């Protein structure tokens, strides 16, 4: 099972993020997704995660994500990722700064029927805000 999920994660990153093919996003996340990592400003679940994904691609149109590590056990998959991009669009209320950012995160997904139905994630949001100049370093 793990190999199937690893491939799904690779597709999400390569096609969904790096090639901006949102069908890869829809393939990865279930419509019944429970997402524990969304900000209060977006809807819950799949809709919110989709909005967050679209917002990130709009804010950093040249974003490239790298899968640094991926492993799993049973129905759970762990992905450690890094991302780079240039802040060219509005992001969470911050107007474009033109700055280049580099961040990292770790996500955990629980799969049912080949899709993520539960998503946990922590990423370097403070680092992101510092690089954009919103928070002092």
């Amino acid at each position, binding site marked *: 099972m793990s190999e199937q999920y690893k491939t799904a994660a690779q597709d999400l990153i390569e096609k969904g993020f790096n090639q901006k093919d949102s069908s890869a996003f829809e393939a990865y996340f279930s419509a019944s997704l429970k997402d524990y990592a969304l900000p209060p400003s977006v809807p819950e679940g799949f809709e919110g995660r989709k909005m967050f994904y679209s917002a990130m691609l709009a804010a950093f149109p040249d974003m490239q994500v790298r899968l640094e590590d991926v492993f799993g056990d049973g129905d759970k998959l762990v992905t450690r990722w890094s991302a780079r991009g240039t802040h060219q669009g509005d992001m969470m209320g911050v107007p474009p700064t033109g700055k280049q950012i580099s961040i990292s995160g770790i996500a*955990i997904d629980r799969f049912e029927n080949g899709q993520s139905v539960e998503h946990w994630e922590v990423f370097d949001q403070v680092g992101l805000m510092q690089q954009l100049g919103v928070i002092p370093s």
Partner: protein
Amino acid sequence: MNEINKTIARKTMEALHQHDLDAVRANVAPDARFYGWAPEVLDADGHKAFMSALLSSFPDSSFIVDDVIADGDKVAVRHRLRGTHQADFQGIPATGRQVEVNGIVIFRIENGMVAEAWLNADIMGMMQQLGVVPA
């Protein structure tokens, strides 16, 4: 192998929970590297110093393990730090506020010890809970 490595990971988290940094250190390889605690990579001494400072700032810290996922030489631990901000933390004077901070750490286990670790912690959430950053 997964079960052995899960046990090592759980032992490390339990030692943190008990504030026993010597016990943590005993599970850490001498040339271990820690990514994500500080802007720079920390070695075993640096990690111990960082955790010591954190425990000074939040002396009643609890480390709560929510999930452990092991595969090969890697173990991920989804966890929470709960504590009260009772002393200066990275330049932020004591606020007396309680925080609950989500984190995911990945350990790479080699020869029964932590050889590498990567951490992502919700520091933004912590800052919001401390009142330093608007929520």
